[in-house]
């Protein structure tokens, strides 16, 4: 029989890179992503007996992470979890290229719930129905949030080249 803690440790080890990436896309910041993942894993550990029997543990934890993120947004502030006493080792990331910084800023301009919908649909490749299940909302809400999220991204991107040309011609 597998020890639950050993099993938990093994599953978390496998999930961690994907969870951190998801947290990064949602929050736009690696440090906050780690806070989100840490809070999610604590919740996962506390209900591991039930979680370990989930059909798709990946989806189960992903849903938990998105809900932790949205819950922190809902409260209007987020707490910095005391992850470790020490400064993370080797955390110096590669310098941001300008385009990536722009992309992050564009995504950050999208409201949190719409961003979560976009990330689940276009990064995690969930269907509208699966996204609705993960966010505990209706299919219609997912569709409208997707539409609003795309509009927010377009707005953050600024006028397209074609629009700029037509504006110049109008002037």
């Amino acid at each position, binding site marked *: 029989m597998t*020890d*639950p*803690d*050993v099993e*938990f*440790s093994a599953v*978390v080890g496998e999930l*961690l*890179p994907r969870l*951190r*990436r998801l947290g*990064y*896309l949602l929050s736009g910041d*690696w*440090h906050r992503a*780690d806070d989100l*993942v*840490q809070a999610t*894993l*604590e*919740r*996962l*550990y*506390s*209900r*591991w007996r039930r979680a370990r029997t989930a059909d798709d543990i990946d989806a189960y934890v992903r849903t938990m992470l998105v809900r932790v993120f949205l819950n922190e947004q809902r409260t209007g502030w987020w707490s910095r979890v*005391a*992850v*470790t*006493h*020490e*400064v*993370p*080792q*080797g*955390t*110096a*990331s*590669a310098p941001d290229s300008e385009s*990536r910084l722009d*992309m*992050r800023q*564009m*995504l950050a301009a999208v409201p949190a719930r719409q961003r979560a919908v*976009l*990330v689940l649909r*276009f*990064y995690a490749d969930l269907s509208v129905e699966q996204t609705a299940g993960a966010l505990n909302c209706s299919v219609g809400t997912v569709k409208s949030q997707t539409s609003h999220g*795309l509009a927010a*991204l*377009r707005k953050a*991107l600024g006028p397209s080249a074609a629009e700029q040309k037509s504006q110049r011609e109008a002037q």
Partner: protein
Amino acid sequence: MDEQQVRTLMDTLARDPQPASSIDLATVVARGHRRRTRRRTITMAAAAVVVVAVGGTGLATLHSHPSPPQNQPAKTGTLHGYIYSEGGPPLAGSPRALPGTITVTGNGITRRVNTSPDGSYTVPDLPPGSYALTGHSPYFGNGTYACQAPAMVHIQSGHTTAADALCEMN
């Protein structure tokens, strides 16, 4: 911006190099265990309230941590090992023992012991189960960096389990 462009944007951002994780499994286990105990206590308290409500007047006694059966010897195990770093003086390229402290977390308990000058430590009387092992040494990052065991440590009653905490830079 269409859906395909959003997918491309997400994929590009997701490929950003991940910095070293600051997530500490020992903290996850300790805090997760506390959370689980709290939830269990609340659930039991709620159940007791229901019992009292259904039974009219009555006395509900809660035992969130049941006592072990009487007249039975405590069944515990021992953890023993070293805290060490790779390389460096005096024996370049080989494990080097360090003095410091060892923290063992799991099963709702946290135990901290000092190592001997040769870097060895012993944690006696640990209930069977899995534990996260973390070490700190003033000779490694002035004691601010954690030295971790590569995996959870499993303690069995009546046995001494060996586990080392390795101090290494990522």
